[in-house]
């Protein structure tokens, strides 16, 4: 029993250290020399691909279309600043990838792996062998073995040449759609459903082939099924986690009380959509249960390892990924979702200055749009396709039309801690927000007393200098 207490104590201490470290969080940056893959010339690459083209694979014209489009799109993606290099995520994922390659020596030398700042939980495989793991996925997977399975799945997409095959299938469908000599041409709808069906076949094949690579590694095979199950949960749960909104509320905000009640009711009724039949029909992936079943993992397979490269590193990076994702959401102007994630993380990491400041900054931009442009965020159901139905986001959207309610809302984070003055950035964000809500003097006055040379003073000084110029 004493041993168990010790373990609990050290685990608690370790978690506290990790969480406290995030209080002074600075977003992960690229470091060192830029890898050659980021600087590859798209024209040269297209010319090289065309000269290496297998004659029986694609016609020259098809090759020109496929290679040019994919190389130019990839070059633009690599230069967009969303792909990491020289950082801890890339280093760790590269090691897991090397572990897979070591166990599968016949894998192509063209394969390269990268981590992106993208918050959507997804991984992708490109025609040239570039694999991308999104930060959103890294933050959700439970262990290294699950990550390894996802990588194996993406490798299988490349090794089975799914992008080239999909392109060819698309060309065939296009002919069947446009050829006037055919008695019965395909309609747009038929072509779309056939394309989706073909995509689901490719995914099923990537599962099976990827599982073969995964079997050669020393990872726990049961984690392949767990990884798929985790991916299945994403659509329902990613933005539907229960928020203890009441913990952030003061006594006077009636509207927020109503908001909270509405939100809780929504969760109680089942916050996620129950339209799996329709979802499956329009999905590019088969349903998760059948994917797991087809892997035929069987019993007695849980003997492998959950970690080979390192458990501590994985858990640290997984935790850090949530904070980097908040930064990525904010930078991409996804303010409602950014705010939601800040609030969710604050439940576990109460008082984190970075999260509080980012939550307030997000609210500032939500209110900014209402005040300056007289517009509400207008989202339709299709905007939530990727993230699942979410009562919270819908309700926040509804609140945007009411600046009083939003101003009350702005007090949420600060009232929870009652110590906004402890951090310049946090206080500054709060002041900006209240400034937009036409209540500037009281808060700015207090702020300037506390931070006479703080962020706001510097901001004013720069503005004055600029005007003088």
């Amino acid at each position: 029993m004493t041993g168990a207490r010790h373990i609990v104590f050290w685990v608690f201490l370790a978690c506290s250290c990790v969480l406290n470290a995030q209080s002074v969080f600075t977003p992960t940056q690229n470091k060192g020399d830029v890898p050659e893959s980021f600087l590859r010339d798209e024209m040269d690459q297209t010319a090289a691909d065309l000269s290496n083209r297998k004659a029986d694979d694609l016609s020259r014209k098809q090759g020109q279309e496929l290679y040019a489009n994919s190389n130019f799109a990839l070059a633009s993606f690599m230069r967009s600043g969303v792909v990491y290099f020289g950082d801890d995520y890339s280093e760790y994922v590269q090691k897991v990838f090397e572990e897979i390659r070591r166990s599968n020596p016949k894998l192509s030398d063209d394969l390269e792996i990268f981590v992106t700042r993208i918050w959507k939980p997804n991984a992708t495989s490109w025609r040239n062998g570039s694999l991308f793991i999104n930060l959103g996925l890294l933050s959700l997977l439970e262990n290294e073995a699950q990550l390894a399975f996802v990588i194996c799945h993406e490798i299988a997409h490349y090794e089975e040449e799914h992008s080239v095959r999909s392109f060819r299938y698309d060309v065939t469908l296009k002919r069947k759609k446009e050829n006037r000599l055919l008695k019965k041409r395909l309609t747009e709808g038929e072509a779309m459903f056939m394309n989706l069906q073909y995509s689901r076949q490719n995914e099923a094949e990537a599962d099976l082939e990827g599982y073969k690579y995964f079997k050669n590694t020393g990872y726990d095979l049961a984690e392949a099924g767990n990884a798929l199950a985790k991916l299945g949960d994403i659509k329902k749960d990613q933005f539907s986690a229960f928020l203890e909104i009441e913990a952030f509320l003061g006594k006077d905000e009636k509207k927020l009380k109503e908001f909270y009640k509405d939100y809780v009711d929504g969760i109680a009724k089942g916050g996620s959509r129950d339209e799996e039949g329709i979802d499956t029909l329009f999905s590019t992936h088969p349903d998760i249960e059948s994917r797991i079943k087809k892997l035929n993992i069987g019993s007695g397979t849980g003997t492998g390892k959950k970690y080979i490269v390192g458990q501590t590193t994985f858990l640290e990076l997984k935790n850090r990924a949530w904070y980097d994702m908040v930064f990525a959401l904010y930078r991409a102007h996804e303010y409602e979702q950014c705010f939601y994630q800040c609030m969710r993380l604050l439940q576990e990491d109460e008082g984190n200055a970075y999260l509080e400041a980012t939550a307030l900054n997000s609210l500032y931009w939500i209110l900014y749009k209402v005040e300056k442009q007289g517009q509400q965020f207008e989202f339709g159901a299709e905007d939530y396709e990727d993230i699942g139905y979410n009562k919270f986001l819908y309700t926040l959207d509804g609140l945007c039309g009411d600046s009083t309610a939003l101003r009350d809302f702005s007090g949420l984070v600060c009232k929870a801690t009652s110590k906004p003055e402890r951090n310049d950035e946090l206080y500054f964000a709060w002041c900006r927000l209240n400034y937009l809500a036409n209540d500037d003097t009281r808060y700015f006055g207090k702020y300037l007393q506390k931070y006479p040379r703080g962020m706001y003073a510097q901001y004013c000084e720069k503005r004055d200098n600029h005007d003088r110029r």
Partner: protein
Amino acid sequence: MTGDKNMMRLLLLGYLFMATGCGTGVMLVTKHSDLVDKDLRKNIRVVSIEPDVNLTKGFGSDAEMELSKSYLKEAELTKLIKEAGEACQFEMEVVDHNQADLDADYFNNLAPLKQEMMLAFFTQFDKLKDSKTSGSGRLGIKQETELLDWGAELQQLYTGLPEKYGTPYFSFQGIYRVSKSLFFINIICDLEMGEVVFSDLRMLSNQPSASNLYPLVYDSFNLFKKAG
């Protein structure tokens, strides 16, 4: 995967339809009203980030030809931006992969800033006030000048860049095909103010070439100089 890029195109598309649909002309220049009636802006340093050219009509079978053309024009535009900017007495720094290899700072700061300029401008643009029409443009196309009483506000994530690059002015130029028309865009922001201070959007009447692009780019920078 190219979500951000596609989003830019969508925003651009939406905006351009709005601009052309209202029948006010094919050239739109916006300036921050604070900048009007001040001394001429010259001898300042302007950083231009990765100019873009996209002449493609879609993902059709002529993709390679269209993308190759865009690629060559992009290199041409990059060169012209430097020449035209310097002719307007600006000290130009063009950060572009056609000129030199990109460094880590580009990927950490400049590439996201370029996206931020586009996002901020196109999402906040529709609140223009005090507009006035300045008559026919010098290039034989109708033009309209809009004066804003506030500029599109940028996020406070890039405040370290002015010190690093020795200037608060960062810009982005590009040529895009929207439907059947080609457009040139020039957006300049002031990171000390945290705002987009100048933007210029014009429809091109001809296929872009060195001879017709230079006066266009020069004219755009010249307007910025006079707006100062």
